[in-house]
Each structure stands twice: as structure tokens, then as C-alpha cells.
């Protein structure tokens, strides 16, 4: 295959994507477009924070206490401008938000990926094997569902805090949060995947594969999984917003990300202590950012759910 041919094929892939139902429904809805643009913007600013942020707020050596508590749009003694003001330690709020949003997104997305993998695996196994294993796994899911997500996350968090030494705790906090939020969010994945897989399970190609003696792992991963991906994608997007909010709640309660590596929730918590004294910018800007982020992700999720639902077409 020549290079130009390959290029042409790739082009056609992109062209195909632009010609798909999904893209058309995306283009049709102005709100979804706006949400998509905002989400993309937030994603870029947060993940490119080291390049884009005006200051490096988490390099303790670079912040000066003398620049603390400056209101938005102020200039400090050294001539540095702070668009959104500074916090009580002299960190630039804008930069802090960019880094904080990255943390929020990593934890939120990490938790959802973990939950999706765990939930899909349980769903697939349940659907394929059925019987007592199915009953057992689904009863576990029922039990899990009766606990509010935040409670599960708090529980796992508490155990981790009590068992890990403070030396490693701060560094491990992100993984602990991803794990605990993921553990709280796998049930919807498991249920939807199980339902979808049970339908697929009865279809001829799966039966044929079984008769031919294809290994179970291959049937699960190569035959069933690709056909149940749609619900996973939809649930993931809808739950991403929830997971970001739950993480923010945990951090706001002081059991989430540490102050040395804050997420938006941590920033809101720290800032809330200065709300009474009139330093509104420390908490307001991270708060607004969280609202915008969650709202746009939620709108995208809603759109994806509708667009992928054949019954709504």
C-alpha cells in the first residue's frame, strides 16, 4: 500500500466520522456544541496547565507570602499581575484552578475508567455464566447500590487513612480516591452490560462461537464486549460528572485531595474559610469552574445518551 493510499483511507475514516449520525446530531444541538467546545477548552487548559498557567503555584519555592490575599486584577510589588487574585499563601488563583481542574479530571476520569472496567467485567461474567454466579454478583450489586456513593467512598478513604502512614498518604491519595470512587460507581456499568450481553448471548454468532469451542475469554472480550460498548460509553459520560462532583464533595469535606495537590473541591474548601472575611475570590472562582465543568460534561452525557438510543430516533 502506497503512502497516499494509506492517507486516503485515514481521511475517509475521519470523513466517515463527520458523516455519522452522531456528528449530525451533535451539530444540530447548539447547546451540545457549546458544551463540547467548553469541555474541550477546559480539558486543554487543565492538561496543558504547566505550559499555559501564568505561575507555578505548587512549586513552594516560587510563591511569596507577601503576595497573599490580593484581590482579582491586582499587581504585587514585583509587578506580577494576578487575574483572579491570590489565596492566603500568595498563590495565583487562576493557575491554581488550572492545576486543580486537572486533578479533578484525572480523579474523575480515572474512577470512571476503573468502574467501567470492573463493572463491565462483572456484567459480562454475570451474563455469560448466569446461574448462581449471576445471582451472587447481582445481589452484591444490589447491596452496593443501597449504599450512597459518598458513603462507600468515605469508608474506603477512612480505612486507607487509618492504615497508611502519613509519609505515603499524600502521594497515594489520588489512587485511593480513584479506587474508592470507582468502587462506588461500578454497579450501573455491571447492570447495563449484563442486560445488553444477555441479549447478545442468545444470538447465533455467540452460540456458534461456543459450539466451535472458542475460549471463554475470547467470547467475552472479542464477541460480547464490542457489542455492549454503547451503553458503557453513555454511562461513563453521565457518571463522569457525578464522579467529579463526588470527588469535589470528598475534598470539600477534607477527606479528599491534600492541599499540596488540590482538586477543585479542595480549593473551594480552603477558600470557604475566607468567605466571611470578604475574600470571595479564593472560593468563588474554583466554584464557578466546577459548575461549568460539571454542567458541560453533563450536557455532553445527556446528548450522547439520546444520540445512542435507537428508540429515540
Amino acid at each position, binding site marked *: 500500500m502506497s503512502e497516499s493510499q494509506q492517507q486516503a483511507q485515514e481521511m475517509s475514516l475521519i470523513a466517515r466520522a463527520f458523516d455519522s449520525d452522531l456528528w449530525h446530531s451533535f451539530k444540530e444541538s447548539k447547546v451540545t456544541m457549546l458544551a463540547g467546545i467548553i469541555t474541550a477548552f477546559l480539558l486543554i487548559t487543565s492538561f496543558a496547565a504547566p505550559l499555559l498557567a501564568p505561575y507555578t503555584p505548587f512549586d513552594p*519555592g516560587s510563591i511569596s*507570602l*507577601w503576595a497573599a490575599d490580593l484581590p482579582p486584577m491586582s499587581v504585587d510589588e514585583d509587578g506580577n499581575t494576578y487575574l483572579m487574585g491570590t489565596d492566603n499563601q500568595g498563590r495565583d488563583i487562576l493557575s491554581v484552578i488550572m492545576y486543580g481542574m486537572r486533578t479533578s479530571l484525572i480523579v474523575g476520569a480515572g474512577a470512571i475508567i476503573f468502574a467501567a472496567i470492573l463493572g463491565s467485567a462483572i456484567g459480562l461474567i454475570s451474563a455469560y455464566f448466569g446461574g448462581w454466579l449471576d445471582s451472587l454478583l447481582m445481589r452484591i450489586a444490589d447491596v452496593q447500590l443501597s449504599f450512597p456513593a459518598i458513603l462507600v467512598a468515605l469508608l474506603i478513604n477512612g480505612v486507607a487513612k487509618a492504615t497508611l502512614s*502519613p*509519609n505515603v498518604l*499524600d502521594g497515594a491519595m489520588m489512587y485511593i480516591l480513584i479506587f474508592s470512587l470507582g468502587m462506588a460507581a461500578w454497579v450501573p456499568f455491571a447492570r447495563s452490560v449484563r442486560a445488553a450481553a444477555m441479549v447478545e448471548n442468545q444470538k447465533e454468532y455467540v452460540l456458534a462461537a461456543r459450539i466451535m469451542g472458542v475460549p471463554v475469554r475470547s467470547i467475552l472480550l472479542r464477541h460480547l464486549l464490542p457489542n455492549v460498548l454503547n451503553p458503557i460509553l453513555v454511562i461513563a459520560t453521565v457518571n463522569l460528572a457525578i464522579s467529579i462532583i463526588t470527588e469535589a464533595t470528598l475534598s470539600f469535606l477534607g477527606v479528599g485531595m491534600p492541599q499540596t495537590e488540590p482538586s477543585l473541591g479542595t480549593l473551594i474548601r480552603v477558600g470557604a474559610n475566607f468567605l466571611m472575611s470578604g475574600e470571595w475570590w479564593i472560593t468563588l472562582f474554583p466554584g464557578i469552574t466546577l459548575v461549568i465543568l460539571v454542567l458541560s460534561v453533563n450536557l455532553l452525557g445527556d446528548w450522547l445518551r439520546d444520540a445512542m438510543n435507537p428508540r429515540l430516533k
Partner: protein
Amino acid sequence: MVKRKAFMFLFVALFALTSAANAKTLRWGFASDALTMDPHSQNESPTINMLRQVYGTLVKRTAGLKIIPDLATSWEAATPTTWIFNLRKGVKFHDGSAFTAEDVKFSLERAAHPSSDYKPYVNTITGIKIINKYKIKITTKAPDPILPSYFTYVFIMDKQWSEKQGVTAPANFKANEESYAVRNTNGTGPFILVSREPDLRTVFKRNPDYYDGRVKIDKLVYTPIKEASTRVAALLSNEIDFLNDPPVQDLARLKATRGIKVMSTPQIRTIFLGMDQSAKTLRSNPDLGKNPLADKRVREAMYRAIDAVAIQKKIMRGLSVPAGMITAPGVHGYDKNLDQRIPYSPKVAKRLLADAGYPNGFKIRLDCPNDRYINDEAICQAAVSMLARIGVRASLNAQPKSIHFKSLSNSESDFYMLGWGVATLDSEYVFRYLVHTRSPKIGAWNHANYSNSEIDALILSIQKEVDNKKRDKMIHKVWKTIGDDITYLPLHHQVINWAMSDKVNIPIQALNETYFYQATID
């Protein structure tokens, strides 16, 4: 007859109603709870302040810090090494049993028990002799001219009650020991403990038989509220009436609010950082292979890296006094000339670090409380970034005081924040806890593990010196030496602020003790 009964009933009901309406309740808020209600288990100010509401001491201080009678009505030094205390007659413990010399002897001995945190308060005592029911003789191993000031902190328990409840020894705080005395009390103080839910709510009621004036508050409700803004919101929304640690950043707003008043006074408490100088290696960075804090140049570098004025102006909003000494004005032995900071200079600090063999600095962990001192966590954060500028990369471990103090007691910290108030208003108290080499009976809070045999000897002779001039000279020498050795890294002297509903009247006290027995509500 029936009519008369009905009338009586109505009368009683009305009376009950009006008296309930007149019941004066004071709702009190603070960042953290008492660590225990065992009177000899933890020598920590908020704990002591809570105990003070319930338990009496032999002598106590006025709001102006003068020593006055409490359970002892008079006392005198019969000889240089013996003290006679005449006890108050007719005093009853909250459970109704009578207070006698037996209880005093028992309590002093309990305070000297190995699991007590009050051993240094009583470590000069060699003999306690009951002369009669209301007279007790105390002998000390050497002249101890300031013994009464130590007794302002030794709470008196009921011997019978303690024996009955099996709490003759203080609960061991380090080992998380729970005993009946940790949650229940039986004192002679102005308030009776009604219910205690640690970290949630503690309720006291008036002791109707209190011997030192009528207590005007019927019910005292204590609620610890960790978040600073929530605490202020609670005061603003009239959910609490009294706050003895409003956040400094909110004082301007509180002062401007109608119906709320703010009182301030310099506190006898200094905030500082401790550095373990005796450990072989750093617990938080064992790979380094040695302990940089053992080198005075490193300690000086860290001292010079801290911009105490920035902390005062930005974090404490001007409400603190940068310190060069770890004791505050008002304490006997305080010296303005020694209370000067080594000048802030990151440049010199870097050079000192390089001289000591750490041109690139080192990693360490800074342990801090986050609910104990005014803006403690924010101060530590600022210290972390200031240290980073000279290459000392400190990770911050900010924890509730209950965990922080326990980890200090268990020698788990290289570098920590501590604040020290001076109960006896005498420097010797600071030496006794913070400077003398750490040993079972003395030096309990010397987690810097400073150890200087010459200074140790000096401290022991200060304890028994009766010639004031000589004693002052020795005190000065200790301060000078530990200052020169950079034993601690002083930050500032705190200022107390109390915010309350303007209906509350209470005398402010420089040790941050709240004398609710003198409080009134209009």
C-alpha cells in the same frame, strides 16, 4: 379543694415555665475538643480549660493572673522545704461526698503517677502528710518557692469516687487508654458535667453548691467546630454565644456586626517549630543517612529562611508578635533583648546549608496540628514554601491535634510545630517541659531532644534556688544558651481574641482560660 389543687398545679406549671425561660444558657464554641476529661492525663491548654469548669485546684489565678485561694484557703512556707495548706471546709464534690485532705493527697499522688502528664508539676514533692481533715503538709526535696503556682494546674479528684470507678491511675493517653475518668467527672468546680460526646457536644450544668460565688450561668453547652468559617457563621447566626478562637481574618467583620463584641489581649503563648537534634537519621527521610538537624548551621539556616514578619502581616493579620524567644512577655525571665529574631536572610541561609554539606538542601516532613493554634496549618504551609527557597523540601503533614500530639509523644516527628503557654508564669516551667533532657520525670515535651548536661544541672538548681537574684541570673543563662544553640525555631507570640454576643460578660484571661463561673448573660 379540687379548685385549689388545680390552682396549685397551674401555679407550679407557670413557675416551671418562667424559670425555664429565665434559665441562662451559654453556648460556647472552639476549634477542637478536650483530648480527655481525665484531669491528669494531658497537659494541654484546651483540655485544662475544659477541666477547669468541672474540677477545682488548691489555688487558682484571677483573670489578672494573681494567685488566689481555691480549695486551699491559705498556705505558707513553714520552712524552706515544707508548705502548709489549709483547706476549705464544707466543700462537696458533685456527687455529694465531702472534700478533705485525703482527696488532696490522693490527687497529688495521682498526678505523680507514671502515666500522668502532670508529673513535672509535682516532681519536687517528696512527702505529703495529712495533719488533720483540713490541713496538709507538703515537703519538697529542695526549696521550691513557686510550688503554689504549679498547684494552679493540679486538679483535685475525689479519692473514694476514683477508687470506686477504678481510676486511681491517670488514663495513658499515648496508649489510647480509655477509663471511666476519660468521659466522666466528679469535681468540686463551678459546673457539673451532664453529658459528653467527644468532638460533638459537652453539656455542663451549674453547680448550685459552688463555694466561690454564685454561678450565674445555668447551663453551658460546648460545641467544637473545626472549620473556621463555620464557627464564625455559628456565632453570626446566634447558634453559639461565645467563641474563644475566632479566625483572625474575620475579626474586622465580627467587630462591625451589631450584637457581637470582640475582646483581645496578648496571650502568654509562643508558637515555634521544633527540630529533633538527637536522632541519628531523619524518620521522614532515612535515605539521607544522617540527621542534618543535629548541625547547628542547618538549624540556623532554617531559622533565617523563615520570614516571621510576612507570617505576622499576611497570615496573622498583624495579630501576633514575631518572637526570638519561645516564651512571651509577662513570663518571669522573659528578656526583650533575647526576644530578637536572627535576621531573615535566605542568602545567608543557603550559604550556611552549603557549609554544612547540604548545598542542594534535603527532604524532610513538617508535622503540624490543624485545629490547635491560630492559623496553625496556614503558618506551616508558609514555612514550607519559605524553606523551599533555600532548598529544604519539606512535605507538610497537617493533622488534628489529637493525632499530632500523640505522634509527638511517641517520638515520631523530626520537625514539628508546637505552641507553649506558661502556666506558672515562670521560665522554669518552660525549661522543665521543653529544655531539660527528656526523661521519665522531666522534659516530657522536649521532642527536639535537646540535651545539654550543663543546662540540665542549671535547671535543677533553678528549681530549688531561693535567692531571686541568683535564680534570675541562672534563668537568663539558660535562655541565652538555648537561644545561641538554636534549640527551637521561634515564630511568634499569640494574641488572644474572643468574640461573643454582646449580652455575654466574661473577663478575658491571658492564658486563654474562660472563667465561666464569673460570666453573666444580660
